[in-house]
């Protein structure tokens, strides 16, 4: 019933501006009840299709509802100077501030567009001095580059066994074998008992091993309904 395409807005403030614009409403005199209803209809729609980022919209939904409630108060609220407080003021200020940056963003985008029509030297004309850079990749000295260097360390890091700070290393194969051995004697064990007192990487790899074994119907996962614990036991559907 409210026909605004979902892709037309970029966030709750954008949605509000769009609703205001569509009704040709004066931003300084927003009919809160009407806008709130329309806004909530959108948020419900977004929730129903599981759109990302709905949480951002919920805050403004709450804000609109509270403004609506305050508008209904029999006595208007007064500030220190005994002037009447418009419950919509904060929202309007926020919308006005947002409009300024939307405008600036559009202006800057035009500037980028204009500037991008001027071309700088291409690689074909690269002087011989830079044609043969050092083998090592050159990076700039910013904190973000420093963080990226950390990321590279993390991505390219050797296997855990060569790192002194993480001496243990587990593989899914090893953990599967470990689980098989235990289930051979015990038939059934809780995940909690299986990993009690172990390191985080032991737990994670064991958990992955269980998922893999369950997927291959080698074991069954039983929910015990006690906290978040679960049991595993031998045999998948073949046993049934």
């Amino acid at each position, binding site marked *: 019933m409210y026909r605004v*395409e979902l892709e037309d807005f970029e966030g709750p403030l954008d949605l509000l501006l769009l609703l205001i614009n569509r009704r040709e409403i004066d931003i300084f005199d927003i009919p809160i009840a009407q806008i709130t209803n329309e806004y909530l209809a959108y948020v419900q729609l977004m929730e129903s299709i599981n759109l990302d980022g709905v949480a951002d919209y919920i805050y403004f939904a709450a804000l609109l509802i509270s403004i609506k409630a305050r508008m209904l108060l029999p006595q208007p609220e007064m500030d220190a100077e005994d002037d009447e407080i418009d419950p919509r003021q904060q929202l309007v200020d926020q919308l006005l501030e*947002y409009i300024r940056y939307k405008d600036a963003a559009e202006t800057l985008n035009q500037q980028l567009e204009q500037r991008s029509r001027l071309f700088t030297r291409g690689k074909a004309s690269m002087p011989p001095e830079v044609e043969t850079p050092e083998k090592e990749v050159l990076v700039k000295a910013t904190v973000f580059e420093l963080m990226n260097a950390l990321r590279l360390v993390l991505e390219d890091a050797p296997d855990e066994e060569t790192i002194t700070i993480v001496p243990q290393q587990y593989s899914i194969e090893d953990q599967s074998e470990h689980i098989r051995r235990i289930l051979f004697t015990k038939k059934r064990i809780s995940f909690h008992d299986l990993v009690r007192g172990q390191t985080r990487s032991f737990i994670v790899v064991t958990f992955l091993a269980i998922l893999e074994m369950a997927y291959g119907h080698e074991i069954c996962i039983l929910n015990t309904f006690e906290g978040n614990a679960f049991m595993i036991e031998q045999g998948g559907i073949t046993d049934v």
Partner: protein
Amino acid sequence: MCEINQKVVNTEVTMEMVLEALAFAAETPVSVAQIRSVYAEVAASDDIPTEEAVQEAVELLNASFEQQGHALRIQKWAGGLRMATTETVAPFLETFFQRERARRLTRPLMETLAIIAYRQPTTKVEVDAVRGVDSGYAIRKLLSLDLLSITGRAEVAGRPILYRTTDRFLEEFGLNDLEGLPNLRQAEELLGEANFDQERLRLLMANGIDHGDQKPVERTSDEDTTI
């Protein structure tokens, strides 16, 4: 090094030529200070050229380019000098590179960048507050595009990271410094424009409306971030 230099000093290498060569070759804008010191070092001269001498060379070179019908100019970007083509040859280059249209950033990226550009140094919380949405992805993307950088942490609770724009930002947007940013207009001024509600607001919304064929859920702003 000295032997090489001696060879050169006998030829008449002017400041314009050095400026031209450095502004042509450098990957980022070259500062006037760098040009002065490179010139003085290679020419093995005690007289370091003045800043005015370099500025004058820029004017002379650009005048010569224009007069002789060249398609190149020295631009003042990010506090330095860099050679670039003129506007007039842009269609030829765009055809050559098969670039459909000039570069733009997506709205989430551009809004985030604008807020940081005008408020810098500032924090993610402040950007989130102005936009009304989480700007984590946009900030990371802008950092990786080298349009933003980290400048430390604010002296408030939680010590949030402070962001600012980079020289790369200035260069990409054709600005010499932050003073060159277009004035941030007052909302009242924007609203006061004729038919703001219909025209301007619609224009601001234009990206979204034009791309009506895109799927809403897939639109996570990571397309079209060419820079």
